[in-house]
């Protein structure tokens, strides 16, 4: 998380602007070649008015405008559990983020139940179970290779019975181009709807900050299957800048809600667009 706008600032001190260098820096943040080019072209159009040092400011403003003013916090519902479905491709950090979100909500005074709906991957249930024990948050699991939808169904019962505020469902990783696995996700969605037709109330796509252009494709495909209400960008403690979240916001209008900043449970925050453009990106 070097903060490429900051390093840009150091490079663009001269009055003449190296456009290639600027484009390179934007692309390096995984903003994608098209958006990067768009920014460069916009800037070039105002070239006469600009000084090298203004470039950073203008580029930053450009990105900031795409992002929303503020990000909606995770509020409780009245008298019933709020169901949060956590989805995404393999290995992005769904299970870890589910635990982190549970911890955050729990710390804020909410009562949380976890559903271990990845019945497929080796030791996926055990992984969430370790978190559930460490955090002392109840978890519902099913038999190995069982039906993930029925795990969520049963977990809903527990959440309702114990008057929990949130039910967080961790699902198996699935690549968005696998038809059967996407159908399975639809089924989870459908079954949860039987308990409460407005459920799931939140569908969060977990995206790895290390991912390049494919992250947008992932978001597009998942969004087609189940409308997303937010994105969690993980691994921002690495060198990935998570620029793709800007593309996802721009094209699909789906805001980033949380960010992951490490493997530890407390290394998780609500997304702050201002901080993102000023420090992270």
């Amino acid at each position, binding site marked *: *998380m070097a903060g490429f706008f900051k390093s840009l600032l150091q490079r663009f001190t001269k009055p003449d602007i190296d456009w290639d260098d600027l*484009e*390179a820096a934007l*692309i*390096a*943040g*995984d903003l*994608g*070649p*098209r958006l990067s080019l768009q920014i460069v072209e916009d800037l070039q159009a105002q070239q006469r008015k600009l000084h090298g040092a203004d470039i950073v400011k203008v580029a930053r403003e450009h990105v900031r405008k795409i992002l929303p003013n503020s990000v909606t916090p995770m509020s409780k519902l009245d008298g019933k559990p709020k169901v949060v479905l956590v989805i995404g*491709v*393999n*290995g*992005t*950090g769904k299970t870890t983020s589910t635990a982190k979100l549970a911890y955050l909500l729990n710390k804020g005074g909410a009562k949380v139940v976890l559903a271990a709906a990845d019945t*497929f*991957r*080796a*030791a996926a249930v*055990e*992984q969430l*179970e*370790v*978190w559930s024990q*460490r955090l002392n948050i109840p978890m519902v699991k099913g038999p190995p290779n069982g039906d993930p939808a029925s795990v969520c169904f049963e977990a809903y019962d527990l959440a309702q019975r114990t008057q929990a505020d949130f039910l967080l469902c961790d699902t198996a*990783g699935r*690549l*968005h*181009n*696998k038809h059967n696995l996407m159908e399975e996700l639809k089924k989870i969605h459908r079954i949860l709807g039987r308990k409460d037709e407005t459920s799931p109330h939140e569908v969060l796509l977990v995206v*790895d900050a*290390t*991912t*390049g*252009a*494919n*992250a947008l*494709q*992932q978001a597009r495909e998942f969004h087609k299957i189940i409308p997303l209400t937010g994105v969690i960008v993980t*691994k921002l*403690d*690495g*060198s*990935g800048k998570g620029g*793709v979240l800007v593309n996802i916001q721009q094209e699909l209008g789906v805001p980033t809600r949380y960010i992951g900043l490490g*493997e530890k449970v407390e290394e998780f925050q609500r997304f702050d667009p201002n901080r993102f453009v000023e420090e992270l990106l």
Partner: protein
Amino acid sequence: MFSLLTDKLEDAFRKLRGMGKISESNVSDALREIRMALLEADVDFKVAKDLIEAVKQRALGEEVLKTVTPGQQIVKIFHDELEKILGSDASELDLSQPSSILMVGLNGAGKTTTSAKLAAWLKKQGKRPLLIALDLYRPAAVTQLQVLGQQLNVPVCVPAPGETDVVRATKAALAWVEQQGLGIAIFDTAGRQEVDEDLLSELKKVRDLVKPTETLLVADAATGQQAVSVANRFHETVTISGLIMTKLDGDARGGALLSMRQVTGRPVKFIGVGEKVDQLEVFHPDRMAQRILGMGDVVGLVEKA
């Protein structure tokens, strides 16, 4: 079937029709499209730039073939160049027994799954794989490898309960391997970010103890512009001997592989094409080049011309 890139190149090259040779001025639109295609496939900015320069030199002055379109022709030149970079050397694993393989990479790249896949593949070759769990951080990482080992009927070495010191766990594992007699030991390490100096130096200690015959960097096909930094840092720290790209059953174009190959100079050993343990394949540079360029069967067409 032609791809988007070829379509765009057709536009760029419409002007070229009727001209005898590819020249600096008529090639520039096409090169811009190719550059965009490479960047959209997540090829590193600088790697893409150097590549385009090299190809431009080669393309300039080439006769425009009559039977294919110039767009197809230039894609073919690019394809050949990519194929050369991706697969110019043999990618055999060192399979003499005893030997050892160290698996390294970012969090969630697919190291544990690929360790199991390699074990399955080695068994098929008539070798005796051993799996060693060295991830002490991720919850249930050890159990994950144990479950996979059981499925494959491959012995798995697990750290002592409550062990938190990776160096001590590695020493114990080496003693275990010794006892097992001949075999190929696959060491599954914890995922780490390449900017985490503490975790990198820990990995170096493990490497120094294990003295692996192969050190494989496992990377996700969807990796973005971070690829160069990842490959550089892991290579500097533990000297990798090869690359494995996972999740190529997705639709990521996988341009990161080109960057990683370029900066490390190390060959691609295998690719992962699914979550199951038998979904490991040998690497085909030609297919990968086509995938990165996002093209159809242009190559066959041009070769026939």
